[in-house]
């Protein structure tokens, strides 16, 4: 039997399903960071606002990377529906702590896809995700460093404004 389905697609459907969920997650992250940029701007943290603008763009690039991989692999990428974007934060510390939680959730999700693709013998998907695994280490590290800087600076007096200025060090 000629393998028409295999000729049509280079990856396993299970991997495709999980990558479509990941597309949605990256889009959700992008929208969340845009909401954070809005919060920072409205609360006078203009450098942090810039930082989150850039993060939002990066997350969209992540989404497109997966989207294009699915196209290259002959799969069917789904344009995601995004709802439930939080715009309320108690403080700038709350913003960055939520960011770290968000990045950790993304890391876990990527790792789950790596393990699943390995389980179904989908080497192409597993290798494709190498870049994302390393990217997540960097993302988590950046936010951790910012949280460390925040705890060293302290939030008393001019601390908050100093924190915002320092965030500029993490904008490339």
């Amino acid at each position, binding site marked *: *039997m*000629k393998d*028409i389905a295999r*000729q*049509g697609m280079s990856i396993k459907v299970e991997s495709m399903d999980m990558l479509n969920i990941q597309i949605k997650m990256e889009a959700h992250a992008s929208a969340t960071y845009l909401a954070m940029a809005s919060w920072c701007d409205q609360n006078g943290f203009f450098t942090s606002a810039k930082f989150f603008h850039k993060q939002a763009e990066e997350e969209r690039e992540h989404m497109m990377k997966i989207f294009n991989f699915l196209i290259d692999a002959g799969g069917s990428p789904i344009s995601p529906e995004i709802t439930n974007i939080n715009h309320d934060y108690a403080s700038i510390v709350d913003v960055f702590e939520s960011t770290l939680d968000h990045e950790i959730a993304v890391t876990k999700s990527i790792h789950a896809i790596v393990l699943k693709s390995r389980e179904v013998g989908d080497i192409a998907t597993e290798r494709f995700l190498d870049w994302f695994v390393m990217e997540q280490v960097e993302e988590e590290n950046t936010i951790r460093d910012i949280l460390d800087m925040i705890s060293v600076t302290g939030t008393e007096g001019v601390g908050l404004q100093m924190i915002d200025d320092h965030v500029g060090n993490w904008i490339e």
Partner: protein
Amino acid sequence: MKAIYKSQFYALFQSQQERCFYIDFGQKTVRASFCQLLALRQKVLSIEIEDHFDSDLNQHGFELLQLCNKEHLFILNTHEVLDLKQLIQNGFVQLGISSTEEILMA
């Protein structure tokens, strides 16, 4: 034409010459390219069967299914939806692009 998988109500075939698939829905047979088969899979597997048991979410227990870029329209009841999910999951395993575990779960 080669039979890939038969469920209780439906059957999936592959045509080597035409490089496409046929799905026998009983009252009509639908021709689908591989991409259309992927789209059909997406639609069928994303049907929330739990909604069929909630009179607020799905009052009559029917599902409208549009296939092949709006070329076909089917109205399926709960049994037919479950059977079609079965056909899709097992069919893709037979086609060699889905892991065999899914067949046990289905």
